[in-house]
């Protein structure tokens, strides 16, 4: 099966004073549709950089990135925006919903943005119901609980029918039980819609829910478990 995400020999370094600071060094990764991958690692290990490169927010110093069969490397900023719009679904550390839109409007916004490229026939109502958010449809984020907000954020990430879901510490702002529930929901949707997903986390308690675990340490990526 075609890979949803392919990173080939990715390196990223920053100029740091006189020397160079290697954040990522020669990293490769392949994720297939329907596969749920976790990346763990201590803080400062480059997890954010890794996620930004995978999410077309940052260009690598070296190596190539393929999302849904499209090579990102040589694209300009405008093209990267289009890639993010059509092929990538983000779940951020804190929900980052727009405060002035209701749960349903958060989803339809993404849907409207993708209206013209023939993607996404998902219905916002179905998506909300699927995540147990039917009653929240007309609520603003300020009126929702932390878990509800993060679930809306999950729903939003799926609304553009992306090739890959990227989750940045989705449990960080939630307590243990709610955090687990959120990751369970991500897993459920990933399997249901056959999407590839990468979750960056240091919450060890949810690692049993993913298919593959990688550890990011000393600028390198190592496969830990293949569950």
């Amino acid at each position, binding site marked *: 099966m075609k890979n949803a995400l392919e990173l080939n020999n990715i390196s990223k370094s920053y100029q740091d004073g006189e020397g160079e600071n290697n954040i990522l060094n020669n990293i490769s990764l392949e994720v297939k549709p329907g596969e749920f991958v976790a990346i763990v690692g201590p803080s400062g290990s480059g*997890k*954010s950089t890794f*996620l*930004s490169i995978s*999410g077309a*927010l*940052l260009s690598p110093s070296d190596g190539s990135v393929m999302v849904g069969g499209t090579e990102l490397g040589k694209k300009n900023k*405008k093209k990267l*925006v*289009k*890639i*993010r*719009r*059509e092929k*990538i679904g*983000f779940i*951020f*550390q*804190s929900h*980052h919903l*727009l*405060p*002035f*839109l209701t749960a349903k*409007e958060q989803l339809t*916004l*993404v849907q409207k*943005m993708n209206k013209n490229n023939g993607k996404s026939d998902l219905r916002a109502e179905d998506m909300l119901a699927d995540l147990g958010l039917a009653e929240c449809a007309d609520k*603003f984020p300020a009126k929702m609980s932390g878990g509800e907000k993060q679930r809306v954020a999950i729903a*939003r990430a799926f609304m*553009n029918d992306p090739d890959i879901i990227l989750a*940045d*510490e989705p449990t*960080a702002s939630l307590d243990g039980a709610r955090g687990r529930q959120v990751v369970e929901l991500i897993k459920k949707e990933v399997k249901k819609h056959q999407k590839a997903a990468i979750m960056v986390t240091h919450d060890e308690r949810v690692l049993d829910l993913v298919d593959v675990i990688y550890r990011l340490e000393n600028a390198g990526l190592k496969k830990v478990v293949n569950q």
Partner: protein
Amino acid sequence: MNLAWKEIRHSKTKYILIEGILILMIFMVVFLSGLANGLGDAISASIDKTDAEYFVISTDAEKLIATSKIDKEMLEKTASMTNDQVTSLNIKRSNVNTFKDEKKLDITYFAIDPNGFLNPDITEGEGLVNAKAENPVVLDDSFQEQDIVIGDVIEDSVTGIKLTVVGFTKDELYGHSPVGFIGADTFTTLNQEINSSYVEKYNAIAVQGSDIEKINIKGLEVVDKATIINNLPGYAAEQLTIKMILWVLVVISAAVLGVFFYVITIQKQKQFGVLKAIGMKMSEITGYIMSQVFILSLIGVVIGNLLSVGMASMLPSSMPFFLKTPMVIIISVVFIVISLFTSLVSVRKVAKVDPMVIIGGNE
């Protein structure tokens, strides 16, 4: 994109506060423009309202209509050089006494040909042309506040000649004093009382149309109405001062909106980061920001204008205040355009936001 409106509706308090300041500033600007027009009219209304497009005056008057002198024969000479109607005009400041009390009242005589086109619109009584009384006068209706009614006799303070009030007109002002229209023959009578060798002379010859190319008389020049008004004593100085304050205020109020908006934009950097991360194009974000500024400035303009109009209807009639719709429209449009322009600063700020700020939490 209705994101703009949804956000304004959601954060009502914040935007109502901004809107409040905007409305007050627009109100001030529009009100000032009313005052500028009112003051301008107090100087120039009677010239402005005439049907004349051009005035023939003597060259040595340097475009000052009241100091120009033209001999009587020039009227016919001018008439022969144009297909348009021409008529004579004399302007003279004076005082009149009423017989009811000892008060001396300011007046500016506009001495005209009763059959010519400079006759004012009569609001009460009759015009000079039908008047049977000796030395008839048509007064601006502000004299009615001095209890002068039709049929009253007033006395020219300088000469003691009695004038009979035959009619009233309205909004006729020149150099901050109300105007009384008299016939050219009455004007000659007045002058002969002071100087028995006076011969009929004019300040200006008014031309009704624009057929002026062939009017070419030595010592005389043809000047358009706007230039005549601009050269009335005090007019340019007053207008320039007030209009300068007015336009500076327009710019300041638009800049205030721009600054407010910039502060709000800085507060919302993360939000813009999210929009960029989920793939919103910069053009769409620009549209969102600009339409928000447009909505705010439009609401401010509409309410501010309504407030000014409402206020205008409550002002005492002695206050020189007059709202001119074209002027109000120009101010409103300029305000909105400058507001949109200042919002570009916010747009530029947002363009620089790196969507990466939201990855890795709140460091």
